[in-house]
């Protein structure tokens, strides 16, 4: 009823308002579409402090460099007595579950690169099958002769992943909503006879994630 009393000037204002309203709607819709498109392009945020494969790969690359430049390897050459290296799987002292296959692969990846293999050969270091793998192959029907004493391993390559956790509340809520995990990955070569630590390489990874820990 009130609309009947509106003057022409009022109607003109009304149309202008409508036009500006439409423009605003188009702007907002475009902004939403753009933000959605950008949102799709960005990777989803990390929601767990578990170790990612990329962390382990980076760790192996870092430690491999440390091994290549180590005093232990530099002190050896083609004339050195043969060193027979046996590999142990990673000892998991972290808060993350690491599959057994991954525990093996992490150590073996350290030695698997072609240039590392060549380096070890040049330094007269032979890598032996670990006893667990021998048992596995024997179960599959392969037979291995008893090790003669001259073939016994002289060195052992070990690795360990340890971690420390810190959690707290950023928003001042009742439950922890931020968690940070510090991982320390260390590799070591020990001389078996003397139990001497002849090389150690370490690297660290930290992961922080926000969001309710319990929910």
């Amino acid at each position, binding site marked *: 009823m009130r609309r009947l009393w509106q003057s022409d000037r009022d109607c003109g204002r009304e149309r202008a308002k409508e036009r500006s309203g439409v423009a605003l709607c188009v702007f907002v819709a475009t902004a939403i579409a753009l933000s959605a498109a950008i949102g799709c392009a960005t990777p989803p945020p990390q*929601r*767990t*402090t*578990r170790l990612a494969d990329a962390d382990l790969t980076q760790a192996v690359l870092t430690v491999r460099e440390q091994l290549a430049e180590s005093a232990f390897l530099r002190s050896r050459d083609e004339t050195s007595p043969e060193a027979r290296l046996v590999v142990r799987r*990673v*000892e*998991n*002292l*972290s*808060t*993350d*579950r*690491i*599959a*057994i296959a991954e*525990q093996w692969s992490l150590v073996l990846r350290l030695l698997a690169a072609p240039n590392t293999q060549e380096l070890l050969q040049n330094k007269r270091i032979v890598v032996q099958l670990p006893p667990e793998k021998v048992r596995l192959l024997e*179960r599959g029907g392969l037979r291995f002769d008893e090790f003669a004493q001259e073939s016994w391993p002289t060195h052992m390559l070990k690795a360990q992943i340890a971690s420390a956790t810190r*959690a707290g509340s950023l928003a001042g809520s*009742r*439950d*922890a*909503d931020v*968690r940070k995990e510090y991982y320390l990955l260390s590799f070591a070569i020990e001389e078996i006879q003397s139990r001497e630590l002849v090389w150690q390489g370490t690297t660290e990874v930290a992961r922080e*994630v*926000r*969001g*309710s*820990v*319990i*929910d």
Partner: protein
Amino acid sequence: MPGFVRIVAALGLVAQLTGCGGSGYQADARLLGLVARAEFGRAREVLALQTPDADRHNDLLYATKRGMMALAEGLPDAADRDFEIVFETLRTQGLNADRTTESIFVNEEGVRIWKGEPFEQAMAYAAIALTDASRGDWGNARASAVNALFHLREYDETGSDTGDFGYRPVVSDFALGYLLKGIAALEMFRREEAEEELANAVASDAALAPVRDVLLAGNYDTILVIDYGFAPRREAVGAGGVAVRYFPRTRSDNAAVAVSFAGTTRRFPQACDVNTMAHDARWQSRESIRRFKQGLGEAMVLGGLVLASTGGTDGDDDIARLAAGAGLMLLGAIAQSNSRADTRHNELLPQRVYVVPLMLDGYSGPVRVQVDNRADSLMTLHGLHLRDPGETVLRYVRLPSARVEWAAADRVLYANDATGALPEPTLPWILGGRDARFPTQEVVHDAERAGLEVFSTTDPITDTLGEIRELYRAEGIRLFPPGDTRLVTGHLFEGGHSLFTPLPGTTGFTRLFARQHTPYQPKTNQLRNFLAQHMHNTPAAETLREEVTP
């Protein structure tokens, strides 16, 4: 519109809306029955048929139950498939962060991803730790146990003078978690850590001191982790079903578990009572959100009612006020009706857990386990002595809570990949015998001694072995060699299609190999023909020959 009519209409609307809160989660009674009778293989089949909801809100719940049943069956490798999902999900933070606003207007069960109450999470981590420990993977067992020991929150009344109430974090009192971490630390030669964790376990429950002493003295080579009963039922109670209360399925008591072997019986205290955890506010998390929703809903309905029933008698202002009032009531009613508690819970969790360190010291006979004063809980364990030299064996044992005849069986009736051949040679299961081992040359040798005729002139044993494996395949049976049980389904003995041996010393092992099963009936003519040709001196072969002769 007269005010009285408006109020009646509004109340009618509210009453209708508040009725749409949903009936809530229902535990699967059939599943509970199967687990009570220790039929974990069949329980796995029931769980495998449960289809995930479209929004995958219950994936964690289903995966936890599947993992628990595989573990109880003695299949830690199969359990690991589900438990890796469980671990990943539990470690994911802010899983329901995007759903908080939504959950104000939609029932929690419809919108939230189930992650369980803190006590359910701790128990799930403990189950994962047991899976790893059963495989001798102490590092991962330790990792899972550490995750089970998260801080809890406790209502803090220290600020009561100033009216500043709140919550404060407190260290966990999860004795089972401390025990598992302590055992893992001992096995990893981390004595100092083990002493600390076992001291924490005793601080949480002084009754565990004898268990700690045995562990620290190293006077054990076998650890049994024994579950009994069912965790409490979770129900919505109170006005609007806003609160949850747990009702015991298995009542709590202080009964010890008795473990008997070699003429001696030892008793061990409980390490965990899930009924107690469920009733402890520190082990719960979300009730306040629902109380907020209920309170908000009530306020909105009341506010809307006042707004709608006041004001002028005519004109647009009045209509607008009425509409706003109705809208407010509507939103309030929705919030209120959906404040009903989420009643999803893991009904397969045990009511109690015992941790039992034993020194078998070469004893190879059966070991009997029974909760005091619970006759139905009896279970006889076989093959606990089987291990690598110097190895500590941890076995998870889920006791029945309903009487099962086979639980008392003190003899293994079928050859299997753990305890090996029977004293007398027997035929493979598929040929009507009692040999349930993965077919190898040894199995064929035993079959030959049991009456199987082998014909090949070149290498009869190898050729017959190939034929037997082919027969299993033709009958639709998958063979799983020892140590390769990740993908096993139901066992052949129980109508399934997998031939495997679960871990010895578990309830699943006893049920499969110490219980009498109906002999295998051939499904294909290929098997009938083989039996007719290779088995000449048995009555069964005569019958088969008659069957296959046209």
